[in-house]
């Protein structure tokens, strides 16, 4: 997959657990896990916005394009 999800890196930087992020963003643990492991096929803008708000970062910090 050309798009890599760096959610775990940002979570580690902010010292935030998956449970905590799940509660703050309002996503289920299984959905967050799908995103974190790179199994997700798409991400909604609303989800991305909520994650960026909670982790205080830019979408580019979470998603990365690798050729």
């Amino acid at each position, binding site marked *: 997959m050309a798009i890599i999800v760096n959610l775990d890196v940002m979570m580690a930087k902010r010292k935030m657990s998956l449970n905590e992020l799940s509660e703050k963003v309002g*996503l289920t643990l299984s*959905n*967050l896990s*799908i*995103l974190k492991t790179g*199994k*997700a*096929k*798409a*991400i*909604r803008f609303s*989800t991305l916005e909520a994650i960026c708000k909670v982790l205080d970062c830019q979408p580019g910090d979470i998603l990365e394009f690798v050729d």
Partner: protein
Amino acid sequence: MMSKANNFIFIVLKIIAWVIFVGLCIEAAALLVNFIFAVFNPELVSRLYQKMDLSDLYKNNKWAFYQTYLFILSTAILKAVLFYWVIKLLHKLNLSSPFTESVSKQIIQISYYTLVIGLLGLIGHESIKKFFINPDLRYEIRTFLGDSEAFILMGAVIYIIAVIFKKGVALQHENELTV
């Protein structure tokens, strides 16, 4: 959520499918018995459940006899198998979340069976034309082969539905993996 009317229709469909399946199994078995008796003991054929007597054809042209029975038996057996798959599908199908891989595969399988039955019937109709001069017997055999055009049309429609259903499964899968 499945409405009460849908639930009722589904139960009725299941019952109808079971009745047709049992009927088709009986017909296929009866035709098989008929075939065995026509070969080994032709005098008894007139007393059997399906009174299709092809013993004259057997005496005159064995190749035509076997060819006719091949079409009749294979169509009858395939019809029973088709309804076995229909029953399996009806028992497996969950109307609240119908888009699953196994249901999609079963619908495709049903379309293949329907198309094969239609094509066999069509080839059978054409091939018996030259063997039977007696129109009554020809008509009787045609009833066993079924309405091939209808089966081909039905098979094509089911195949189109199956392809659309497959797309639906892919869309549901994508939707499930959208966060």
